[in-house]
């Protein structure tokens, strides 16, 4: 393959990888940490995108508008957590049903309130010199990696992270250890929501913002979470890498449709071969490697 083509393929991979990561992290935090399957994840993304679009239309600079999108979604998530979600902890499948209902309501309310499109937001930064594509996609990839790193540090290294994880595993015991578990739930859900909002904000310039905007993210995010497995953050990286590679390769070979189908089929096969996801497989391997010691 000629160098520019390789570069283009690489660029495509970066683009898809960033998309899957950003689409997924919010869901991964809420699913992996809290055991809530948020079928309204796409609509949380939608909140971020609408808030960003309207903030830009109101004359705010793009970066500030995006921050507005993130904060608005986090706040929205917080309210929803207090009103509804907190009744669903430990009820995995119910959480799926309820959040699907929420998603229906949100899409339709968005439609009723704002019509069928939000104001457009232009793509910033212009185009790249070597490959044909916007600089912005590289920015997205950098943000994606940064978000993952930040989350990993937050949840694995800080006191907050340990407390949050402990709360999700056994609320009662965590409370008896002095953790204000209500606050942990709220904070974790708000972080997950804010990350969904971030995805919405970041893709507002790239994708037309309509009431169905969120559904464009849904499939990729669910597939990535499931393929990733129980260690959510590491899982998200690995699954995004894997799915992104499959998608980019097949898109390049046989077009967007085949790219999508190949990715979904790869996901189905992956779940079959690794019922506990990629990170599940990793810990199995770790166990196996131990044997030879």
């Amino acid at each position, binding site marked *: 393959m000629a160098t520019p083509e390789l570069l283009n393929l690489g660029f495509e991979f970066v683009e898809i990888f960033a998309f899957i990561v950003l689409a997924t992290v919010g869901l991964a935090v809420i699913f992996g940490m809290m055991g809530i399957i948020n079928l309204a994840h796409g609509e949380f993304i939608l909140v971020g995108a609408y808030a960003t679009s309207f903030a830009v239309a109101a004359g705010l600079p793009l970066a500030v508008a995006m921050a507005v999108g993130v904060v608005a979604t986090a706040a929205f998530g917080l309210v929803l957590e207090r009103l509804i979600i907190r009744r669903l902890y430990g009820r995995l499948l119910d959480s799926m049903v309820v959040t699907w209902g929420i998603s229906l309501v949100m899409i339709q309310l968005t439609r009723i309130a704002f019509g069928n499109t939000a104001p457009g937001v232009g793509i910033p930064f212009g185009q790249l010199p070597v490959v044909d594509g916007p600089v912005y996609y590289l920015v997205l990839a950098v943000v994606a990696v940064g978000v993952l790193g930040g989350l990993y540090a937050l949840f694995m290294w800080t006191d907050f992270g340990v407390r949050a994880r402990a709360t999700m595993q056994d609320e009662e015991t965590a409370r008896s250890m002095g953790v204000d578990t209500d606050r942990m739930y709220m904070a974790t859900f708000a972080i997950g929501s804010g990350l969904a909002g971030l995805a919405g904000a970041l893709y507002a310039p790239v994708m037309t913002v309509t009431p169905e905007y969120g559904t464009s993210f849904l499939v990729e995010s669910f597939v990535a979470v499931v393929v990733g497995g129980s260690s959510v953050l590491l899982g998200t990286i690995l699954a995004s890498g894997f799915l992104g590679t499959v998608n980019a390769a097949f898109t390049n070979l046989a077009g967007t449709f085949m790219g999508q189908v190949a990715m979904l089929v790869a996901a189905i096969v992956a779940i079959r071969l690794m019922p506990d996801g990629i990170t599940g497989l990793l810990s199995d391997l*770790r*166990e196996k*490697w*131990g*044997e030879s*010691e």
Partner: protein
Amino acid sequence: MGTSDPTVMTTQAVDETGEGTSRILQTRNLRKEFGGLTATDDVDFALEEGELRCLIGPNGAGKSTFLNLLTGQLEPTAGKIYYDGHDVTDLPSYERVDRGISMKFQVPSIYEGLTVAQNLRIPLQQVADGDAFETRTREILERFDLLAERDTVASNLSHGQQQRLEIGMAMALEPTLMLLDEPVAGLSVEETAEIADLLREISDDDGVALIVIEHDIDFVESIADRVTVLDQGSIFREGTVEAVKSDPEVKRIYLGEDH
């Protein structure tokens, strides 16, 4: 280290000479590793038909792991399990049950949402139907003193009742070998005594072989003929309760000086 028993046999040998030994269960070089940790270390273990054996040993010695290997909940890293003369190492759990192994887990795991009668039905319908089914249900409920709780939802039973129900369910399968992981943990002295009587009865009257894990040494003393001490995945001692109890090494690693 596993006491290398000169009578350990291959499957075939067991098949041919089974009557001479009446050995119901035997493991050969059974091994389970978790990562770098060897939880079961080349265990050769043998149990006679109808025997009641207690398994004791320090926390983390690998007792639960060993039992889980026998039931098929865990897959061994290496080694073989022979049951009733057959190699059952690769059989799934449910087929081992068909052959007569039943188990009570370390934490109570009855069906919490079902009533006592419904709980019992699950194992019982495997072996009986029609009138026999009704008679057996009644029999077991009586024997385990649960007749009054027949229609109580299991989650509303007391801890002791739950333990009895679970043993009753294991019995309903009419097993030839029953495995019990800490059946009296958290039970009062009185209830512990009740369970001890039950187990003795199951062993003596029904001729069921039992392996019981327990830390309560008084309880062990009250039921067991022989005990096996596991330590760090291996069989450390095996013998009568008195012999093991007075062994200074067992005192050191397990019982402590109070016993």
